[in-house]
């Protein structure tokens, strides 16, 4: 009798790839265009950019298309692609005050310098289905565009805005920004060996999986922790990327990246001069992803609080627990791997169980 057909596994894999493609192509709908994904699902697209850790909007769309809409898989595609790219250089730190803002709000103050800019957000819309969206055609989109651009008021809104928290700093209610010339920790070049600096913490979370970060932050918000945040500022917009000119060394704008940034203000503590001040939590990521930025800021504060107190009371305060479990590529990969053959290890387990049962039987049968 033949052993497992020697071509079986490889053939099955090839068949699987063809079937995935066939499922995509079945039916009467037209193939997805990359533009459609980026334009009409920008928030899903943003999630992939952010979790992939590579700002390449076209490839993020391709990743979603190729992965049949699985955001974990799509982020994985970007991450794997990034893995092979050579390191060309490093920029200087970027100040997000240069951000060309599309949305900017603060929960801490009723009004803020430059104004509260609601921008495009579903936050205050009713989550009621608009069934007319089921029958949209190209002419619907054309009408929407005409309505928006035709009647746009000619208000002179500034492109960039000051930071809300600077107001608190000016009054001394928030500790001044510490100057640091420390090299930021590069999580793509060094593994996390704890304790890690804050830059490693933030970098890991910046490309962390949204659901994972949210669950951990939520645990802190509900009481497994005591951050009690107020959103000092949440801003979304395009940050110009400044790279040094190859000849003159002068910083030149090479392009822009969509970034979401959240600064939360949390419980106060004593500053160096003895007077109490508010504390800060910071979150930022590629793309438009507010839940992630807020969750990140809460976790940033939670971990810092525990570090200052020297006591970890909850999982969301434990840097190892948080940072080692929020990477979507790693968690998804390991979860998925349980579907692989494990029959040799299982055979080994059966041997141990049988041995232990034999011992138990012998003990039960032994004369007293």
């Amino acid at each position, binding site marked *: 009798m033949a052993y497992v057909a020697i071509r079986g*596994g490889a053939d099955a894999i090839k068949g699987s790839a063809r079937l995935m493609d066939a499922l995509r192509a079945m039916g009467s709908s037209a193939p997805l265009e990359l533009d459609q994904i980026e334009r009409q699902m920008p928030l899903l697209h943003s999630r992939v950019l952010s979790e992939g850790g590579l700002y390449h909007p076209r490839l993020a769309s391709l990743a979603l298309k190729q992965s049949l809409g699985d955001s974990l898989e799509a982020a*994985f595609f970007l991450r794997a692609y990034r893995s092979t790219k050579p390191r060309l250089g490093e920029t200087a730190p970027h100040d997000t005050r240069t951000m060309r803002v599309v949305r900017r709000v603060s929960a801490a103050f009723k009004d803020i310098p430059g104004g509260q800019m609601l921008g495009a957000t579903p936050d205050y819309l009713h989550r009621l289905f608009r069934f007319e969206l089921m029958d949209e055609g190209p002419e619907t989109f054309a009408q929407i565009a005409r309505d928006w651009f035709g009647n746009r008021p000619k208000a002179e809104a500034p492109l960039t805005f000051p930071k809300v928290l600077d107001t608190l700093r000016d009054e001394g209610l928030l500790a001044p920004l510490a100057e640091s010339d420390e090299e930021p920790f590069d999580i793509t070049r060094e593994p996390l060996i*704890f304790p890690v600096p804050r830059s490693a913490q933030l970098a890991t979370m910046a490309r962390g999986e949204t659901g994972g970060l949210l669950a951990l932050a939520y645990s802190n918000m509900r009481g497994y922790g005591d951050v009690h945040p107020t959103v000092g500022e949440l801003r979304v917009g395009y940050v110009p990327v400044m790279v040094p000119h190859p000849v003159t060394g002068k910083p030149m704008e090479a392009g822009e990246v969509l970034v979401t940034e959240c600064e939360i203000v949390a419980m106060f503590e004593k500053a160096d001069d003895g007077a109490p001040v508010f504390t800060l939590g910071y979150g930022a990521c590629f793309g438009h992803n507010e839940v992630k930025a807020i969750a990140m800021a809460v976790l940033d504060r939670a971990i810092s609080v525990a570090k200052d107190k020297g006591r970890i009371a909850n999982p969301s305060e434990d840097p190892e627990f948080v940072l080692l479990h929020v990477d979507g590529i790693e968690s998804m990969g390991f979860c998925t791997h349980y579907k692989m053959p494990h029959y040799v290890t299982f055979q080994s387990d059966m041997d141990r169980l049988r041995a*232990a049962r034999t011992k138990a039987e012998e003990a039960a049968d032994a004369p007293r």
Partner: protein
Amino acid sequence: MHPVDTMGQNREGAEYGFAFLDEDAKRELRRTIFKAVCIPGHQVPYASREMPIARGFGTGGMQLTLALLGPDDTCKVIDQGADDSVNAANIRAFFALTCPGVTGTLRTEEASVIQTRHRIPELPLRADQILVFQVPYPDPLVVVESNAAKRRRMHGRADYARLWVKLYEDMVAFDEITISHRYPTRINGHYIIDPSPIPRFDVPKLHQAECLYLFGAGREKRIYAVPPHTDAIPITFNDVAFAVESFRDKTTGKRHVCRRCGADDSFLDEFPDNDGARVFQCSDAAWCDMRLERLEAAE
């Protein structure tokens, strides 16, 4: 359509270099491998790169293999002892795609580099062969301590007291050490390693071998090594002998044999066949094939 055509160039004209990884990544892997060999059993951290195959599917083993392979290598990939297990087939296809010139083989004796998941080949390996293990959990102390910093301290001091306590608790509860695969093994009298989920049956092959053993954990970002001619002793109590899987039938008392080649000394896969009967077959497909070849040649 040859997969290399789609892999080699994208629209921007960018290409993948030999063995997929960039030279910086390979250099870091090579530095880490060198240190691992100089400090047998110590888990050396490295900046594990993401691969186009998911974490948990052997990215650590793959990075090791990709750092090693050159165009005159012959490479074999096995999973659960079989070349055609889906995981091995997938990885082998990736090597074929990214390492032009490297020869693939199913025969253990022809390979210069073998990447494996969960088994050591039955055929003893030679000094000119390297065995690369895919490792899910590099640290045997993870069963007794979840904090990585504390585990590192314990390893540095060879302080394995809490592991011994765990084994003792097993004895008290079951009169057996219940660890089956991933059996903690002491290397060169200092570091205790997790030898990856190989069965107990394979652990003795680590001891004083001719070949080099390299262990790669991609997700956990650690590499460790057992050099040739190095002591690798599974830990146990003085009065509890280390026992391998017996494959002894409970009723007849006889050791099961492979239904295909008749081997009575190899690790066997046990599974129900279509009639519901229990059958046994060599887990190491190449070993089974080789035995069959020899039997047929002898006839």
